[in-house]
């Protein structure tokens, strides 16, 4: 690809490629993410574009991975040869993997908005960055949050049963959780796995989890299956203190409270999340919802953020040369993140955002509220929850 810019400051448009699953089973979230990225581009352009490039306008080219790794890869290649100087994407770990290799070979920076697998950044690729926390740090942070919440409410947690999806995502979140939890004195009474591709009833998994009388049931997985888990817990007599999602695809989704009904009440979720206490985030969400008629989920906010990261990189480097852009992103410190993070967005050696972290949400009054830590809280934590009945 020879479309990389010259580095002069007479550029008119800078192209960013966005690869997300716009069709297939993940089309729902993929579409939201694409819209998030689009809106970021529009906002930046409306605010005068990239100043250091003489007010250059951003342009977003979108690619549809269809949820398949090889399609994602060829879409990424297409976008780069059509002039993209940076990529954002892609939601799925395997697709992200392939896009990361394209980015590396083409020397184009790639900012991962969502993709959880630790492994992606373990390849030693220098062009790939990730904003969200990775799987193992979420597991670890989840355990820490749990302990802290227990201490704060005076309801110490001694044991947990863990239900998670099979595969890299679930396994690594669980492993990190377990390590940290055991360090903190929490026993894991049971690890129960299920297959994500064929899961239409969670009663057995939940009853197995409840059999050990754990203080809490921890859950990691995607939307449909976690919804099933919540419903199953809701239907069974138990005296656990809480259902606690860690990197759960469902529990902090805006559609979850309605879908789960009573079973969703007071369910907790430790996850990366848009910052509900940030006015900037609130403004973006409001405009998003008005524009697209759909609530802006966290994943979508991450795509927005990823475009901002690239824009900031362009601003810093004053060049649309991908390699200079890459260096600028690597050295970035982006204040006022839209996500509830522990500080500015800064990438470590491996490209991971070092200040990425999870916060705890809870379903209260049919809404997802941020409850922990205190600095991000929008509502009062209820713990132990009513799920023990």
């Amino acid at each position: 690809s020879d479309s990389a810019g010259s580095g002069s400051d007479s550029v008119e448009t800078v192209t960013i490629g966005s690869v997300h699953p716009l069709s297939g089973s993940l089309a729902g979230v993929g579409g939201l993410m694409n819209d998030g990225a689009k809106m970021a581009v529009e906002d930046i352009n409306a605010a005068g574009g990239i100043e250091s490039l003489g007010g250059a306008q951003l342009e977003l080219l979108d690619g549809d991975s269809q949820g398949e790794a090889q399609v994602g890869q060829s879409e990424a290649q297409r976008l780069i040869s059509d002039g993209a100087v940076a990529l954002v994407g892609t939601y799925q770990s395997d697709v992200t993997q392939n896009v990361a290799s394209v980015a590396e070979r083409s020397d184009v920076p790639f900012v991962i908005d969502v993709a959880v697998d630790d492994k992606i950044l373990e390849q030693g690729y220098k062009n790939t960055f990730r904003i969200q926390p990775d799987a193992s740090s979420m597991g670890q942070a989840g355990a820490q949050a749990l302990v802290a919440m227990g201490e704060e409410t005076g309801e110490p947690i001694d044991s947990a049963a863990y239900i998670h999806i099979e595969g890299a995502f679930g396994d690594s979140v669980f492993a990190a959780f377990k390590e940290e939890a055991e360090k903190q004195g929490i026993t894991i009474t049971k690890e129960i796995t299920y297959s994500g591709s064929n899961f239409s009833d969670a009663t057995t998994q939940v009853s197995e989890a409840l059999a050990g009388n754990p203080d809490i049931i921890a859950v990691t997985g995607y939307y449909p299956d976690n919804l099933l888990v919540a419903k199953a817990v809701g239907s069974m007599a138990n005296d656990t203190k809480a259902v606690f999602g860690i990197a759960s695809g469902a529990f902090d989704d805006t559609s979850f409270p309605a879908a789960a009904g009573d079973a969703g009440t007071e369910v907790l979720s430790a996850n990366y999340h848009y910052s509900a206490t940030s006015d900037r985030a609130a403004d973006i969400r409001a405009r998003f919802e008005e524009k697209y008629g759909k609530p802006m989920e966290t994943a979508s906010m991450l795509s927005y953020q990823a475009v901002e990261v690239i824009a900031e990189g362009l601003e810093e480097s004053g060049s649309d040369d991908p390699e200079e852009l890459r260096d600028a992103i690597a050295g970035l410190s982006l204040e006022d993140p839209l996500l509830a993070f522990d500080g500015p967005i800064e990438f470590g050696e491996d490209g991971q955002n070092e200040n990425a972290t999870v916060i705890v949400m809870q379903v209260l009054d049919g809404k997802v509220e941020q409850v922990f830590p205190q600095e991000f809280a929008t509502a009062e934590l209820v713990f132990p929850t009513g799920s023990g009945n």
Partner: protein
Amino acid sequence: MAITEAPAAPAADKRNPLTAGGTRITLTIGGIAVVGLALVYLLGDREPALITQYLVSGLLLGGVYALVSLGLTLIFGVLGIVNFAQGAMLTLSMYLVYVLQSSLGLNLYVAVVLTIPLLFGFGWLVQSMLLNRLTEDASHDRPLLVTLGLSLLIVNVLLMIFGGRPKSVDAPVSGSIEILGALADTQRIIAFGGAVLVAAALTLVLRKTSMGLAIRAVAANGTGASLVGVNVRRVYAMTFGLGAASVAVAGGLITPFTTLVPTAGEQFTTLAFVIVVLGGLGSIPGALVGGVFIGVLQTVGSLYLPGSGSLILVFGIFVLILFLRPQGLFGAKQ
């Protein structure tokens, strides 16, 4: 229709395979199941209460599987079509229920009843517009590709209309009851009942109506049927329509406990094939028993093989049965 090369036994099953009860087979499967479960209870090294919960959940899951498979067994058994759009049709019916409920504010079960004729019509159209010619050519690769295309088409059109965000419906009943200390979700019990009802209704249609007679005749010999005055194309369309109508019941009854996205039904397609072949092509009781059998096998199996492990077991048993009893549990030998 696909026929194995296995030599035929004389007068194997004098009854008609579409509705044959297969008492002996039922007893055999029942026996194996009871012995297997007894072994699990005695030697399984798990708490009995837990096993009971798995068993009950497995039975109820089996009911769902059976519901989805009942329509397929007609389509596969009579028309010989490997219908890859089964899962997509299931999703379609779920969205129809959703639309009826959210736009007209109908009670869920009323919506389900209204969906039945809609899907019947859909099935009728699909068969008469897309598949009839291929069915007559007795080709099996082309219908397979057409239904594959159809499945993609349905899923993506749903995506275009409804987007990919999860939807949900309100159910008038909820909660659960206790059976032998195990918890059984009311909606799933209703779905199970639905499966039995649909099976009974289909059996009645096949046994007692002249259309049922015609369907059986077409299944036995298409040309022969046309030579006694059966409008074969109409029977094809009717059969696909009936298959689709059963799918409507399935979709409607599982909607309350399923996350409604355009790909929601997909996970059932594969297992439905396993169940239909297991039960015997075109056998209504076979689909029912096969569904329950697979549901229990998968669920109880997951006590020892968690996650996808129990599915390997399911496919393993499937292949074994294909080898040892290719006509399926309830199929008469060809």
